[in-house]
């Protein structure tokens, strides 16, 4: 199968009081079309930094990222806009990811409007999107603080789907939700993935959720990918010590 995302030797170094700290250390991986790949690891292992680099919210110090065959890192203007038609992101804190002064509907419509749809068309599309994530149309008028975390995360998924991207990066998208809501969101993502042939990069520290949703798992530790395999393979037969520890901490 063709790769939708190819990452080669990606590196990011942060400086804290002029002391270098390598957050992401020469990682390489790829995601195939329609595949769901998980990155797991503890806090500070470089998962979120990787997600932010992939969505161009921060710049890498070295390495290449090919999205759908094109290198977009350092893209500006039109090219950057085109980049965001292919990749979208769902954030960890659903309520923080919507502008508190805009309704959820406006938040979902922002990208649709930016890509040249009229207001009427955008509104129609927005209602469709809400249906897709199983939210009633009246949620369009609500503000982020007026809905629950789960509902807000559904709206965030609708927003990510708005311009039909090929890859969605979910940065700890279920971590801030309680367990039953987590399960609902995972089911929804599974459904969308099957129906739309979406590729997912699912960043999490929760191996249980990952096992349920993903085709392949990358284990990250101190900025490096230390192990790779199918969820079952990794959980039942971890090779690295760190992976063993991580699994023990989840399945007590």
């Amino acid at each position, binding site marked *: 199968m063709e790769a939708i995302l190819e990452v080669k030797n990606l590196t990011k170094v942060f400086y804290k009081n002029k002391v270098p700290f390598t957050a992401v250390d020469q990682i390489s991986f790829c995601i195939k079309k329609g595949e769901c790949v998980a990155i797991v690891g503890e806090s500070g292992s470089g998962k979120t930094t990787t997600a932010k680099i992939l*969505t161009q*919210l921060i710049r890498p110090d070295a390495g290449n990222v090919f999205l759908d065959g094109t290198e977009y890192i350092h893209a500006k203007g039109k090219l950057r*806009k085109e980049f*965001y*038609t292919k990749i*979208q*992101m769902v*954030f*960890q*804190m659903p309520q*923080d*990811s*919507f*502008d*508190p*002064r*805009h309704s959820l509907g406006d*938040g979902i419509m*922002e*990208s649709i409007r*930016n*890509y040249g749809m009229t207001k009427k068309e955008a509104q129609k599309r927005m209602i469709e999107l809400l249906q897709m994530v199983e939210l009633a149309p009246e949620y369009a008028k609500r503000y982020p603080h007026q809905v629950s975390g789960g509902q807000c995360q559904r709206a*965030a998924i609708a*927003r990510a789907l*708005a*311009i039909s991207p090929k890859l969605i990066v979910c940065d700890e998208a279920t971590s801030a939700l309680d367990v039953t809501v987590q399960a609902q969101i995972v089911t929804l993502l599974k459904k969308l993935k099957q129906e739309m042939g979406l590729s997912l990069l699912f960043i999490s520290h929760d191996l249980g959720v990952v096992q349920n949703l993903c085709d392949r798992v990358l284990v990250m530790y101190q900025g490096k990918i230390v192990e790779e395999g199918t969820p079952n393979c990794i959980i039942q037969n971890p090779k690295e010590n760190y992976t063993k520890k991580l699994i023990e901490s989840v399945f007590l």
Partner: protein
Amino acid sequence: MQKQVRDYTKLKLIVLSIFVLGLLVVAGLASYLVPYDPYVQDLSNALQPPDRIHILGTDRYGRDMLSRVIMGAQTTIYSALLLVVVITVIGSMVGMVCGYYGGILDSVIMRISDIFLAFPGMVFAIAVAGVTGGGIMNAIIALACISWPKFARLSRSQVIMTKNMDYIAAAKLAGSNTGIIIVRHILPNIAGPILITAVLDIGTMIMEIAGLSFLGLGAAPPVAEWGSMMSNGRSMIQTAPWVILAPGAAIFITVVLFNLLGDTVRDVLDPKQKKVNE
């Protein structure tokens, strides 16, 4: 209970807004409302104590004090408003650009604003007004020079806090350009604190404009302006106290009204800040 507090605050806002609006209308229509021409001198009638004909008495040129206080409201309040609008707009725009882009531009502008903040404001304003000469416009420019850094600092810190929020990242991912992000997402979210500071500053600015005029560096005679009116009357404080009391009371009432309004706007827009203060 919580709702009652909220309702009370809203009622306070409405009442104070009506008072302030009334003040602005009186100041705006001053030339139609004055019972006498505030500039016509009548030396035979000089320094009359308040009576039925001249409710607030007359000054040493026989001009009606009530008319001059009303006329002075126009000069003082509208110059203060103009000044606040100018420093709010310029200051926040500079601050937003600095906060959003950061880098060398930010460092340079912030060091300049540090210099302005470190300098005793009134002294600097007196120097600027002294160099540019008298006149209310020059007083406004002088005060604008020293007052914009406050708003630049405030909006800069607010932008820095806001620009790393997830919803700004989400807006970037939605393909919005920097202009849209600043105007549609950052500005509405930082407008509250800036607006509160602006309203609270109106009272201060009224006092500073009156202060400069009192020193003879603001409104030039014979323009009716509360500060210069007080200055003119200060030698007669024992013989004809109404000449200094009338504009003084006008400044006092206006500043108190604007400050109360500012506090109430803060309570309505930002209830959290109120809790911290109390």
